[in-house]
């Protein structure tokens, strides 16, 4: 070999070695993973155990933020934290390669043939997908239990003292009892450990128990008989009060149902059982899902016709209908109408039928970045309510409407306009309000944002409101919301009233099933007839602490 050839060979070898080294370095630097999808609390990564990820690892994004690996498959992983699609992170160094174990030499053809025959003659059942039994339907639930204990304090300066209440709430939703039966329970026990005059609501009952629901039901998504018995909140019967009795119907596959209900109606204030009042009637529930590309995507309608005798409204014949539709993917709308007639002298002598309620709700998203939401309520029926011992207020006829628009200007800026009006048809007093709100949803990056709002108010108590709200959260474990508000109200007092308020809400997820919530609201009057922060200045505080569990 000539000298020139040796030199050329050496250069080629050096080039190959250098090239291999560069490729190796590039591969080392390129070991990054990225976020494929992102929800508010969970990220979906394009790397898995093959890339060295393991549950519990903390990944730090090269842009900002971090997350904790939750579950890992061979090539994918989920991660709890905040991030954006496309965020990248450094993958852990790969494990050193395992020494190559030389496999034993292959078996002889005779042995292989023998094994093949054994496998071919062995029966094996095909793996198939079997849907879990137990029905389905929109209302299908696996059952859940909610329980919580709370303490609440109300305090006002210059008053006779704080009000303190302890309370325990429990709710069981669709807990399976076997045989297709489920249990529903909804109750609250409250104890006033301290109260001072004046008291309007149940002044003689420091301990109160409310049971809204305690029923056993059977309702299958596959159709067939459906019923509930006990203290029943009638299933999807629009506007029907709770009752101590039963609801029975026949259910079709797909969720439509028709049936009857009847029973005694508990007291409106104490919920104590009473045979003095009752109700019976019939209902129809229909719902239909249309083709994904059709104009109407979903339609639900519920109807009720009932005789109702309650302690607050007396004997009445009521009819009610609710229609809800999803129209294309841009519009959701609902209409609810209730009519009623007094039957104080029996069903044979009904009074004039009155329009008790009309309610319209609509939410539209004409373009992806713009959403419009509005509602209209007409409450035509008087709703008597107790006001202190032996006193009953008659009223409740009102109209209310609101309209809001929200524009997602960018990924981090949302601009909204809030507006509405409310009219009391008894006193003809009306209030109207309108104002903007600007939200910087990612001012603190993954940790939260702020919003500022202002509302101008007109009507019988005109005024204006402004607020600054800060929301901070940490990987779905802790959330803190603080709101600073200022209000000016005119014509509600001998002089304009300026108030300043601070409210805070803290939610801490202590574990997979236990959460702690603390809410406080403090306000002070900035002017008026009293000196600022003087002993008689209107200062007030509400503090509410709750330990809640979900199982």
């Amino acid at each position, binding site marked *: 070999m000539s000298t020139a050839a040796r030199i050329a060979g050496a250069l080629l070898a050096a080039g190959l070695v250098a090239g291999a080294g560069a490729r190796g370095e590039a591969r080392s630097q390129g070991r990054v993973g990225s976020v494929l999808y992102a929800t508010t609390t969970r990220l979906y990564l394009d790397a898995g155990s093959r890339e060295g990820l393991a549950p519990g690892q903390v990944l730090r994004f090269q842009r900002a933020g971090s997350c904790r690996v939750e579950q890992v498959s061979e090539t994918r992983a989920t991660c709890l934290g905040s991030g954006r699609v496309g965020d990248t992170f450094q993958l852990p160094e790969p494990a050193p390669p395992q020494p190559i174990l030389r496999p034993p030499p292959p078996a002889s053809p005779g042995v292989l043939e023998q094994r093949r025959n054994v496998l071919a003659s062995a029966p094996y059942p095909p793996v198939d997908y079997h849907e879990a039994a137990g029905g389905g339907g929109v209302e299908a639930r696996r059952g859940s239990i909610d329980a919580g204990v709370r303490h609440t304090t109300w305090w006002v300066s210059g008053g006779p003292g704080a009000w303190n209440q302890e309370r325990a709430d429990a709710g069981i939703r669709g807990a399976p009892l076997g045989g297709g039966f489920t249990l529903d329970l909804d109750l609250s026990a409250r104890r006033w450990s301290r109260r001072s005059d004046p008291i309007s609501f149940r002044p003689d009952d420091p301990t109160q128990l409310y049971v809204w629901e305690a029923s056993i039901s059977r309702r299958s998504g596959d159709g067939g008989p459906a019923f509930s018995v006990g203290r029943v909140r009638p299933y999807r019967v629009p506007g029907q009060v709770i009752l101590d009795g039963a609801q029975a119907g026949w259910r079709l596959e797909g969720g439509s149902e028709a049936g009857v209900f009847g029973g005694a109606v508990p007291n409106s204030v104490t919920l104590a059982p009473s045979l003095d009042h009752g109700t019976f009637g019939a209902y129809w529930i229909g719902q239909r899902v249309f083709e994904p590309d059709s104009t109407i995507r979903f339609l639900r309608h519920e109807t009720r016709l009932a005789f109702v005798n309650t302690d607050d409204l007396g004997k009445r014949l009521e009819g009610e209908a609710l229609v809800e539709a*999803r129209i294309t993917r841009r519009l959701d709308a609902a209409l609810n109408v209730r009519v009623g007639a007094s039957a104080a002298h029996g069903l044979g002598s009904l009074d004039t039928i009155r329009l008790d309620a009309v309610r319209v709700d609509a939410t539209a998203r004409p373009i992806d970045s713009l959403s419009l939401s509005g509602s209209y309520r007409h409450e035509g029926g008087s709703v008597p309510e107790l006001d202190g011992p032996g006193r009953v*207020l008659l009223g409740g006829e009102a109209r209310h409407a609101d309209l809001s628009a929200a524009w997602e200007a960018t990924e981090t800026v949302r601009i909204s306009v809030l507006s509405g009006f409310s009219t*009391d048809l008894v006193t003809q007093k009306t209030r109207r*309000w309108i104002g903007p709100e600007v939200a910087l949803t990612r001012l603190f990056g993954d940790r939260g944002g702020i919003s500022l709002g202002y509302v101008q108010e007109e009507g019988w108590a005109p005024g204006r409101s402004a607020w600054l709200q800060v929301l901070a959260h940490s990987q779905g474990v802790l959330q803190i919301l603080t709101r600073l508000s200022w209000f000016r109200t005119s014509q509600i007092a001998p002089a304009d009233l300026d108030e300043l308020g601070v409210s805070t809400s803290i939610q801490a997820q202590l574990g997979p099933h236990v959460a702690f919530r603390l809410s406080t609201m403090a306000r002070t009057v900035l002017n008026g007839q009293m000196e600022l922060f003087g002993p008689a200045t209107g200062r007030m505080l*509400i503090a509410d602490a709750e330990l809640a569990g979900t199982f």
Partner: protein
Amino acid sequence: MSLLLVALALVAAPPPPSRMQPPGHIAVETRCEACHSPAGWTPVSFDHSRTGFPLEGRHVSASCRACHGSSTDFRAPVPTSCGACHQDVHTGEFGNRCASCHDPSSWATQFGPDAHRFTNFPLTGRHAAIPCEECHQNQRDRRFTRAAADCFACHQVDYARTAGTSIDHARAGFGTDCKSCHFPTRFKGARFAGHDACFQLSAGPHAGISCLDCHTTLTSFAAPGTCTTGTADCMRCHACAHETQTHAAIGGFQCSNRKCYECHTFTAGTGLRPPARVKR
């Protein structure tokens, strides 16, 4: 003939083996790994935020069937309104827009005194710090309607409670527009706007003083506006010795309530000035 046999064979032959398709699954969807893992058919993992309905709060742990029903065709439209899945406990009063008061983290209400501003009754003063059920008393239907925009509708009892007290509202002929005198913070410390017609209290040196600072009694009200109660006692604050000295040059001065009032009414248009200084 052979062609016929071939055709018959094709018709009679069993269909070619196909991929196992779970009942109800979308025929074209074959990317099982988008939702399932080799560990088993459950649990299922799916990025729901791409559907326009991100799963937040308690919705994260909801089962797919709770919303999508027994069908596994997840392309089938599902209404996104709260009322489509959650039964209404308010007997329809608020329609299906639960989000005005609740959020996905809990059914505990988020509707506080600040939100009450967007109703016909802003919670001012003490109204912001009382339990909801003090006004909204129907617990059975969890309703919140009430004709309470008018003060007297709720505070009629308080008006009647003044009977026999030093400020008997009915006896004094006070109206029922509570807010013309009272602040929403507390009943005490009321202002009587009509008092300015007789003696200015809304401004000036006597602004903010209470009734019994001047009046010896409030049980014998004359008709409001006639300025003839005869119970105002200037000498409670203004010592005679001092006033006699400061009014030495004023002809006809007498240290008596009636004489003070003849000059110092503090009402608009009288042209008389308040004293430069008040000595208590």
